[in-house]
């Protein structure tokens, strides 16, 4: 139970850094969101064999984390959660794409291996960009800016609610599991026979809680959409930040500097 409590706290530990002060923290949330969005789009837009051109993109997370003093360990632990998924996605490339891309010291490297590492690296860059965004911007500000960008209110409200209540749900699951274990002398862990009713119970409790939360919202006049008025204009420093974090990478995307280095060296 204590282990689950610490895991729940970990979910929110990155966002707790967002209240600090730094050159990055102090920027308008809209520019931070746009910067991360543009960066992710650029990273994802590369072809699956274009690994070399992705390497300079490592500067984005490195520089931002240095400026915002975000601990690498905190970010890397969370990136590690996403890696198994992209490993599964990328492994088929190694198996099916066997055309030789290049040789290194006589060892042939297949295009499948190149695309595999490209997927891994791109996952790393994109997930890191999102985690840095969360570490430097409170979730409430992020959701305000999403609304400002005309993202449908329903999606943003759902995002806020999931973020707010995921810890509560996990806490409830943890309590149920502890109660189960204290009365389960024959098995170690949740037996497959009981998984259905366990998950079903959790679903019902979640539904009940959602209904209570919705009632609480209705009692305070909720009209079915968010009524927050978003203000706060951008400053000169915000525009500079946006330019500094997007233009270099747009140029890297448009112009192939690896070809330049190949010609030089």
């Amino acid at each position, binding site marked *: 139970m204590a282990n689950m409590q610490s895991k729940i706290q970990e979910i929110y530990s990155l966002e707790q850094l967002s209240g600090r002060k730094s050159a990055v923290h102090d920027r308008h949330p809209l520019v931070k969101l746009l910067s991360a969005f543009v960066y992710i789009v650029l990273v994802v837009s590369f072809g699956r064999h274009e690994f070399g051109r992705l390497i300079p993109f490592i500067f984005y997370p490195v520089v931002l984390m240095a400026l915002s003093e975000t601990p690498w360990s905190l970010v890397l632990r969370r990136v590690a959660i996403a890696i198994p998924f992209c490993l599964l996605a990328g492994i088929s490339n190694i198996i099916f794409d066997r055309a030789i891309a290049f040789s290194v010291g006589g060892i042939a490297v297949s295009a499948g291996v190149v695309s595999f590492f490209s997927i891994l690296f791109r996952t790393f860059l994109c997930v890191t960009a999102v985690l840095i965004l969360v570490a430097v911007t409170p979730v409430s500000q992020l959701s305000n800016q999403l609304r400002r960008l005309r993202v449908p209110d329903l999606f943003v409200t759902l995002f806020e609610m999931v973020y707010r209540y995921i810890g509560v749900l996990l806490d409830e699951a943890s309590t149920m599991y502890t109660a189960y274990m204290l009365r389960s002398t024959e098995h170690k862990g949740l037996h497959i026979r009981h998984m259905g009713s366990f998950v079903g119970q959790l679903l019902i409790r979640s539904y009940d809680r959602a209904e209570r939360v919705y009632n*609480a919202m209705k*009692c305070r006049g*909720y009209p079915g959409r968010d*009524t927050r008025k978003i203000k706060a204009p951008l400053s000169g420093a915000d525009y500079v930040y946006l330019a500094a974090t997007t233009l270099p990478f747009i140029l890297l995307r448009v112009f192939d500097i690896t070809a330049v280095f190949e010609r030089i060296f």
Partner: protein
Amino acid sequence: MIEVKDITVTYPDGTKAIDTLSFTIRDGESVALVGANGAGKTTLLLSLVGVLPVQSGSILVDGIELGKSTLNEVRRRVGMVFQNPDDQLFMPMIYDDVAFGPRNFGLSEEDVEKRVLSALTELGIAHLRDRSSLKLSGGEKRMAAIATVLSMEPTTMIFDEPTAFLDPRARRNLIQVLSRLPHSKLIATHDLSFAAEVCPRTILIKKGRLFADGDTLELLRDEKLMDDCGIEALR
């Protein structure tokens, strides 16, 4: 002022949760609502704010009859504090939670801010305005939940088991706060000593029906009456 006249609330499965119940809460009164588990306390509170519909009878809040067209107006006047603060604190920050009601009622941001700060200061939790509810203690969550309703400046506040999840110190703090608030109050509670401290008048309900209505200490110390109602008397 709340006037409840012969209301009946029936669940979809046909269970009569409230049966021909009538009572009045006058301006400034603090009334405890006491009954055994399943007596209908929460159902009654939810019907007063229009969350659960009544099948018969009427509810008047400050002279306004509760109906589909008057829901918003009634909910401005009657603020409900739910039993579990986690159900009431659903925004990322406490400030946004306390501002939620006033914003939905169309107030300007300046007025919203004034109301939020006033509510938080009244309850002694102004320092929590920029905090997330995830990190608050039980007592702080309870105060924040009350602030979310206080900012709406209702004439009546209704509470569902407000001492639930509170340690003795937080409970004592809650008693002091509730005793200070000038609003009409209806408080559903199992905590009889709490009821005795905060509410001069008590309504006893049993199986959705009015069982007794009168002086708190007189009713709660009547062992036979309380036993008939399915509750232990106050000692």
